[in-house]
């Protein structure tokens, strides 16, 4: 593990100690308490407690259908929890719409890439910056000078972000749908970063990537936290990525949290192994 990670690990250990009292972790950027989501009779998340310490990389893993994406969607306001509480930076975000939560500082990417495929790479990132721009539509019609200034500043910022994620300049004016797969994933991250998030939610960022691309992405995620000082919540199936990059790991199965801890603890946790491999593997 890179040296920069020690910070997060220390905080993570503190979380562990505090876990029994269900107290908000000191310095946690996101605190989730007894979150439950029901769809009719189906319980997608049951009583989940979850903390994301400042500047940490936390992973959420679990078999398919364990309720990971449902959990994600509640953190971003795309779904409203049935019960429970979600606090971001000390503010309750239950009942807020996605655009309000983005404004508070949560950005996300999607499991199956959801770029605005007909818009250019540049326009995608500029849309991502929407919540940090102020100009109103009637000001644009009136051609106020500050509208143009803001537009220029946004373009500049978008260019920096495209550089940061390593997207070649020549792609700037290319429609998002024409970009190679790996670059589309990078573009999605640039777009999410454009809103200046304090917490970045990545939903399977290495899905569909070859080992080389996966390696680079893993490194890039670590670098993001180091360089930007943001916290990252990761849903990921690739155990190599999860074990390599996470400070803490939480495991969901059938909507419930079955384990939480450091990567080494999770790797050897019998309950986790059972959830992934089934009871036969044990027998």
């Amino acid at each position: 593990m890179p040296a920069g990670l020690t910070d997060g690990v220390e905080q993570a250990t503190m979380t562990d100690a505090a876990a029994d009292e269900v107290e908000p972790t000191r310095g946690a950027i996101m605190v989730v308490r007894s979150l439950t989501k029901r769809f009719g009779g189906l319980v997608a998340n049951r009583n989940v407690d979850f903390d994301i310490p400042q500047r940490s990389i936390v992973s959420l893993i679990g078999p398919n259908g364990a309720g990971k994406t449902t959990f994600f969607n509640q953190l971003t306001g795309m779904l409203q929890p049935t019960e429970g509480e979600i606090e971001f930076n000390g503010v309750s975000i239950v009942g807020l719409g996605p655009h309000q939560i983005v404004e508070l500082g949560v950005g996300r990417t999607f499991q199956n890439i959801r770029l605005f495929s007909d818009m250019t790479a540049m326009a995608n990132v500029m849309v991502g910056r929407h919540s940090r721009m102020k100009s109103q539509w009637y000001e644009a019609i009136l051609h106020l000078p500050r509208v143009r200034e803001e537009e220029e500043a946004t373009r500049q910022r978008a260019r920096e972000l495209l550089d940061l994620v390593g997207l070649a300049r020549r792609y700037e004016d290319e429609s998002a749908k024409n970009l190679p797969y790996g670059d589309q994933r990078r573009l999605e991250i640039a777009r999410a970063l454009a809103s200046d998030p304090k917490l970045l939610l990545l939903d399977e960022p290495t899905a569909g990537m070859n080992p080389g691309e996966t390696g680079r992405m893993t490194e890039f995620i670590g670098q993001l936290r180091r360089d930007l000082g943001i916290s990252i919540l990761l849903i990921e199936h690739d155990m190599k990525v999860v074990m390599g990059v996470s400070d803490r790991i939480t495991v969901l199965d059938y909507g419930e949290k079955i384990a939480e801890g450091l990567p080494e603890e999770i790797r050897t946790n019998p309950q986790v192994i059972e959830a992934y491999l089934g009871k036969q593997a044990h027998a």
Partner: protein
Amino acid sequence: MRLRLPERLSFVDLILWGLRVAIVVFVLVGSYATLSQGVLGFDGWRTLLIVGVAQGSIYALIALGYTLVYGVLFMINFAHGEVFMAGVFTAFFAATALADSGILNGNPLFGLAIIFAVSMVTSMVVAVILERVAYRPLRRAPRLVPLITAIGASLFLQYTFRSLYGSGVRSYPTIEILTGTFDIAGVPIQKTQVVVIVSAILLMVGLYFFVQRTRTGRAMRAVSEDKDVAAMMGINVDRVISTTFAIGGLLAGAAGILYVFLFNSVSFSMGFLPGIKAFTAAVLGGIGNIVGAMLGGLFLGVLESIGPFLFLDGLGVPSTNQLRDVVAFTLLVLVLIFRPYGILGRKE
């Protein structure tokens, strides 16, 4: 009894191909007959063309309202013709007051600015209220529901304005600076037509840049592609939809004033026909496509102006001028049969 047909050509295909050939033959024969009789000289055709472009640019402005709304909501706002009517009908009272007090012809630019402003703002307000009251509660309903609501809203608006302003047809006051002709490169063109075409082009170019180059324009495109993701980018989807209606309303309000420059009269039912024509233009260009709506409007205007005479006069059809609506709606039917996604639209 079953018809036996070649494997790769269904019965329907056969009929469609027959129809295609018949249309082409009809258009060619009609045009040839008309042109060979030489009733109309070059000047005559040019006049028809200019009339068509002027009319078409108004269709284009209204069509943009249909296409913008379709872009973000995937519904046809059949009450858009009434949004158009509401503005220009309301501005009629401002125009008469300005004319009576002598301002309209004493200080015409100021007067026209007020008339445009009244019409555009009224249409905008009507469009925004329409969305808020009639469409937003039905956002998650099946697609047929808002469509029927739109037809209801259309009638509601027509008869509301009828009871507000009366059922008579009223004439706009004459605006002196717009009477007469300009000489453009030796060609005399009516001033009203020049003003209509130039203003429409300016508005359309403005809209294009608005959608491409501004925060709200990008948000509109984002909402049009994927509402959930747009929301996750910090876009207030409801507000963007509201704004889209507002911009469609502003354009319709401006189109209304340009319309009275050409036709001079207003009534509560005046929105119906231009509304349906503009809808045709939007479908023709590819609904949801902004440039398509502009081109579709212009094409429809020109076809409507030139088509009846060109195709039918030579075949001995009398008073072809009254058949413009027939040509327009025949075009709508043909577009729906052969290219329902329009000229610039994409096959889905």
